[in-house]
């Protein structure tokens, strides 16, 4: 009945050890800080937390294994999510958003019972024409087209308001970040015929261009209607670019030619926290610089260092 929790326990013990408790404490503090924030962003934060759980569930690769081999699989997943939610939800109880504790647990409760994996057979050939040979975006947009359209239109419609469009845009950008979770085969990597540095630069360049295309109009409208927010909007965009750069660097830092997925969820969550706590910005930059150096070193196993 508790096989999944046992596996998680061994994984956390092996990968994080004592650091796990530090992360739990950090997450609880951040959660308290966010839910206690004077600008009343608690409900959006709850939405983001539910989204992160949903995203994790949608992309988890062990689902087939768990349902095949574990007794009462969905129940085990449910318990896992409820436990991992506790560091966030318990903090809510000590704020004005105490009711978010129940909202979070009820919403996360539903996640294992909703089937997100629809068999999408539409090719949407315009995607290929638009993105040409950018397979990361072709694949990512094809997988998330409906969600991306909804989030973009919602962000655009809400753009004159305060904070609402930023939360929606943040969710939109997160979907884009998820494009980099899949690994390409080593043959695809080598097809670029670039050095590690060139590859990382070209991927960042391509990703930023697409982010500008979506983020810029919404942030511009938002800044026109809310001139007091233009500085924050600039910070928001810069931080999202930093997250994108780190996501790319993290992917290739952990890239292995035999693994089809990159595992950088925990590091990414720590990175995302920096959006809520500006003091973490320097830490995020250090994080990026380290990951980039690691990525260049790791990619030198697969790409020629000189052209």
């Amino acid at each position, binding site marked *: 009945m508790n096989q999944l929790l046992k596996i998680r326990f061994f994984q956390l013990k092996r990968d994080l050890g004592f650091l796990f408790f530090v992360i739990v404490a950090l997450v609880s503090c951040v959660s308290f800080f966010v839910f206690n924030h004077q600008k009343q962003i608690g409900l959006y934060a709850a939405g983001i937390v539910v989204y992160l759980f949903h995203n994790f569930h949608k992309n988890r690769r062990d689902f087939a294994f768990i349902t095949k081999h574990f007794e009462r699989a969905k129940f085990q997943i449910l318990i896992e999510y409820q436990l991992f939610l506790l560091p966030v939800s318990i903090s809510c109880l000590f704020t004005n958003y105490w009711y978010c504790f129940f909202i979070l647990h009820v919403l996360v409760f539903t996640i294992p019972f909703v089937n997100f994996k629809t068999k999408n*057979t539409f090719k949407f050939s315009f995607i290929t024409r638009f993105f040409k*040979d950018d397979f990361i975006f072709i*694949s990512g947009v094809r*997988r998330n087209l409906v969600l991306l359209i909804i989030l973009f239109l919602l962000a655009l419609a809400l753009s004159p308001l305060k904070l609402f469009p930023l939360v929606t845009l943040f969710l939109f950008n997160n979907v884009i970040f998820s494009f980099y979770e899949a690994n390409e*085969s*080593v*043959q695809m990597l080598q097809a670029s*015929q670039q050095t590690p540095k060139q590859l990382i630069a070209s991927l960042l360049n391509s990703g930023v261009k697409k982010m500008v295309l979506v983020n810029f109009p919404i942030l511009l409208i938002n800044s026109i209607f809310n001139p007091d927010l233009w500085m924050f909007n600039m910070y928001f965009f810069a931080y999202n670019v930093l997250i994108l750069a780190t996501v790319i660097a993290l992917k290739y830092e952990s890239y292995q030619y035999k693994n089809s997925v990159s595992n950088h969820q925990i590091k990414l969550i720590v990175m995302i926290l920096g959006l809520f706590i500006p003091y973490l910005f320097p830490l995020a930059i250090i994080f990026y610089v380290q990951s980039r150096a690691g990525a260049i070193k790791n990619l030198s*196993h*697969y790409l020629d260092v000189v052209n």
Partner: protein
Amino acid sequence: MLSIKDLSFSYNEEPVLKDVNISFEVNHIHGIVGLNGSGKTTFFNVLAGFLIPDNGTILLNNAEVLKKNIAYIDAEFFFYPKLTASEFLSIFPKTNSNFNETELAHIFNLPLDEFIENYSTGMKKKLLILSQLKQDKQLFIFDEPFNGLDIESNKSLQYIIELLNKKGKTIFIASHIIEPLFGLCHQIHHLKNKNFAKSYFPNDYELLNKEVFGEFDEHLKNTLSQSL
């Protein structure tokens, strides 16, 4: 000449290849045989540069082998999700001017408009082979290329390998199914006990069969007759 000198590689301090010294003729087809776990794939991964050896050198005509000149067709492979076969192929630069995508896809019976995830394992392998043929590479490494292919594709692949060789490519093939290698390879090398034990020419292939698998066959027969 592809020269390998004093090459050693270990996983977690467990040696897989030890003091390998061997030279391979370029523009030849080389078969690598050995039992499961003998280090064939590790040798290929080191050759392709994916794994860094503990020590030793690999030189192609006295120069370092560039990764961009190596075509690697793995035994285990994966593809990016939600891409069609034609989108996948478009990622690879067409440096082989003779490459005719439509014709080859037809020979291999590959529907290029289909999502790759709907392909069978054999079709995925054929697609991967096409992607490498599209590029003009010097060195081709095939790890268990005949596994999972139907008879027709197996035959086509053998012709392709012969053709590549005629174009001056150096080819390495690892296989635990030894028969397809006989008619194909200029030399077959036996990997055993972390090193190349012996190299065989076409005339010695009967001897190879006896030496590589004879001992194992005898052991297997004895064990099975006692265990079943």
